[in-house]
């Protein structure tokens, strides 16, 4: 069973390529994401948390597509997200 499925995900900030055709499948349970600074961990999490739209590629979480506004709202009802800098 797959809870998160990412296909050919790309995200650029200006000229800086944060995610380059990333493919990823996650099963239920706890998953850790390790990588050096600038590897694209936060960018990936933002795309999964629906706070950042990818340039190209697809994301599906819990079977829902964040690119569709209705499915994005449905997904937001089910996910919990605490960003690195919550801004409190």
């Amino acid at each position: 069973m797959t809870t998160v499925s990412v296909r050919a995900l790309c995200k650029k900030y200006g000229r800086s390529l944060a995610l380059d055709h990333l493919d990823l499948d996650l099963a239920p349970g706890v998953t850790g994401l390790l990588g050096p600074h600038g590897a694209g961990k936060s960018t990936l999490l933002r795309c999964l948390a629906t706070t950042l739209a990818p340039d190209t590629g697809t994301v599906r979480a819990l079977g829902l597509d964040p690119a569709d506004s209705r499915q994005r709202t449905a997904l937001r009802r089910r996910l919990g997200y605490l960003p690195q800098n919550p801004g409190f």
Partner: protein
Amino acid sequence: MKTGWHLANQQIAAYVGGSLAPSDVMSVEAHLERCGECRTRLPADEQWLATSWTGIADVVMRPRRGVPERIVERMGVPGHLARLLVATPALSRAWLSAVVVVLVFAVGATRMPMLDAYSAVPMTLVAPVLPLAGIALAYGRRVDPAHELVVATPYAGARLLLVRAIAVLVTAVALAACTMPFVAGPPLPAWLLPALALTSACLALSTRVSVLRSAVSLAAAWTALVAGAALVHWQDLIAAHPLAQAFYGSATFALALVTYLRRHRLDTGES
């Protein structure tokens, strides 16, 4: 901590049964605080304890509601919406203070003898721009420190932007209306419909560009329009003229409709 003695079984049974005298209860509890061994001999209802701790943690950890949030809730606004409203950056004390200061300056300008011929200009210029500035500071990554947290909630996007825009608009218009006794003019202020039209225009334009860019562009355009009209003594045509009022009224309705039809563009998932 260890003590040199322990409670007798009868004392523990009486304590649990509630038949000990108050002075003995105090003595037993003083001992239990220091003696782990005796504490383990107390019968415990684990489910009751877990429920109690959860209840206590919920109360202790629950954020305290501030005065503005309580006022908004008393006005009949649901609790979750009240919290989202008071978290609007543009409704902070600093913003409200800035609005009051700007309005005081605008009222002062209308009463200056040297600006007598332009007495309507300051409020016509300032009052419609105040809600625009508020909307610019109400929603977005650059203006809301908690935006990334907010944008991942189901309320994010069009719904939250519209709720906050209405809150800012109502606040700014109410504060501007408070200046009416100090400014000579018609009973219904000429700036009200331009304020509504510019707010609608800001929201409609935000379906194409960012809220901040939309508000700044419209505020600049309005300032240039009012200042230009004042230079050629057409200031009354800009806001107070019946045709101008009819135009702003129609524009408010049309732009609100455009915003509604394109509301899904207000949330692209991009923080």
